[in-house]
C-alpha cells in the first residue's frame, strides 16, 4: 500500500491507501474521490483524470509517454506538472504522493 493524498479544486482533501500496481486514477475511483472522472476507464483516451503532481514526486512518477503527452497538450488548465493519473502506476516509491485536481474537473 502507498498513501496518496488527493486535493480537490475546492480544497477538500482525501487521503487514501492505494494498492501497489494500480494506477493513481484507479486509487481515486475506488476510494470515491470526486473530480477524477476517468470517462474512458483508463485507456488514455479522454484526459478526464488530469492531476497536478506535487513537485517532490514529479520525477518519481515517471515521464509521460508520447501518447499521454499529446493528450495533455490539448487538455484544459495544463501546467508543467500535469499528468493523466491513469498512466501513473502506484509503487512504493510513490508512498506519500500528493496530487491536486484541476478546475476543469471541478
Amino acid at each position, binding site marked *: 500500500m502507498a498513501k496518496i493524498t488527493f486535493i480537490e479544486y475546492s480544497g477538500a482533501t482525501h487521503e487514501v491507501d492505494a494498492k501497489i500496481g494500480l494506477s493513481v486514477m*484507479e486509487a481515486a*475511483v*475506488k476510494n*470515491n474521490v*470526486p473530480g477524477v*472522472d476517468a*470517462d*474512458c*476507464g*483508463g*485507456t*488514455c*483516451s*479522454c*484526459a478526464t483524470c488530469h492531476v497536478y503532481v506535487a513537485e517532490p514526486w514529479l520525477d518519481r512518477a515517471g515521464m509521460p509517454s508520447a*501518447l499521454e503527452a*499529446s*493528450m495533455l*497538450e*490539448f*487538455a484544459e488548465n495544463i501546467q508543467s506538472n500535469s499528468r493523466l493519473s491513469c498512466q501513473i502506476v502506484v509503487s512504493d516509491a510513490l508512498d506519500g504522493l500528493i496530487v491536486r485536481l484541476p478546475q476543469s474537473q471541478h
Partner: protein
Amino acid sequence: MTDVLGRIVVVGAGHAGGSAAAFLRQYGWTGPITVIGEEPIAPYHRPPLSKAWLKGETDADSLALRPVSFYMQNKIALRLSVGVTRLDARARTVSLATGEVLSYDHLIVATGARARKLPVPGADLNGVLELRTAADADALKGALGRGKRLAVIGGGYVGLEAAASARALGAEAVIVEREPRVLARVACETLSKFLQDYHSAKGVLFELNATVERFIGEAGRVIGVKLAGGHTLLCDVALVGVGAIANQELAQGAGCACENGVVVDASARSTVERIHAIGDCTWRPLPMYALMGRLESVPNALEQAKQAASDLTGRPLPPAETPWFWSDQYDVKLQIAGLPFHSVRQIVRGNPAAARFAVFHLDAENRVQAVEAINAAPEFMAGRQLVGNRKPVALIKLSDMSVSMKEVAA
C-alpha cells in the same frame, strides 16, 4: 428553491444510470435514490468487454464503475437482478418483475440498448452469441482460445474489437459483412480500408458483400455459418454484432414520445413530466449539427447523466459536449470526435501506411464536423476542440504535418 428531497428511481444500472445516481448525490440531492438493474452486478465499464476483459487482462474490480461501498456510503439503493415490467406516469410508479411497485417523484429512464438479432434459421443455437453484457463476454471468452474459430457477423466496432481480441488469444477469426467495407455506417472509407488491411495483416479473414443464410448446428451447437448463395464457414463460436436497438418500450408505455429512442431535450427531459431519459436509449439533440440523433457511447451516457442530475438539482446545465468515441484494436488507438454531418470534403493528415493519420471532415465553410484519428492524439484532441468551437481552419495548414495541430487550431 429546488426540492431535493423527493424519491428518484433510476431504471437501468448501466454507465448512464449508475453515473446519474452518483452525480445526483454529488450535486446535493438528499432524497432517496433507487437504481434498478436487470444484470446481477453493479454498474460497470462496458467498453473493455470486447477488449481487455475478453483477453483476460483486467479483473472484475477494475471493470466496476465504482466499488459497492460507494452506493452504501451514498445511500443509493441498488436493486440488481430485477426487471422492470411497467412505468406508470400518472400514478408515478415503477412495477418490478417481483410484483413490487415503487413510487417515484422523479424517474430517470436509462434502459440502454439491446443487440439486434439476426432473423435467420439457427440464430438460437448454442454458441451463437452477442456482446452487450459481462455475461455475454464471459460466454464468448469461454469459447475462445488457441486454435478455436470465431465467425463474427457484422463488421462494426464490436466485431472488429472481438476479432482483434480473438487473434490475441490465438483463435482464428473471420468477419462477415453485408456491405462492401467494414464500419460502412460509422466511418469513412479511408478508415475502413486502413482497419481492414490492419486486421488482414493480423490474420483476420473477411467475407464482404456477404449475408448469412443460416447458422448450421450439430447437437444444438453452432458449427458453421452458411452464406447466402455462397459457401459455409466452419466455426466453433459465432458472434452477432449487427447493431443495437434502443430499449424504449417501457418509456413508450408511460407515454414518452419516441423516435429511434426516447425523445429528450438538452436537459434530458422526456416529453412526459417528471421523466428524464439518458444514455443509449435516447433520441437527443445534437446542438453542433442542429439535428436529433441517437448516440451509443460512454461520453454520451455521462453527458446526459450530468444534464439530468443538473436539471433535477437546479444547477446550470453543463456546456454541450462534442460527441466522441474510441476503440482499441491490437496496438491501434482509434479516436473519433464529432459526426460527419453536412461534410463536403475530407482532408487526410498524416500517412495511413505509417499507421498514424487523421481524416478531417469539413463543411462548406471549412469548419471541422468530425475527425477520425488513428494513433494521432493531437489531431483528435485539437479536432474535438474545433468541432466544439466551430472555427474554420486553413486547409493548407491542416494537411501539412509540419504545421502543429496547436497552430492549426489557434
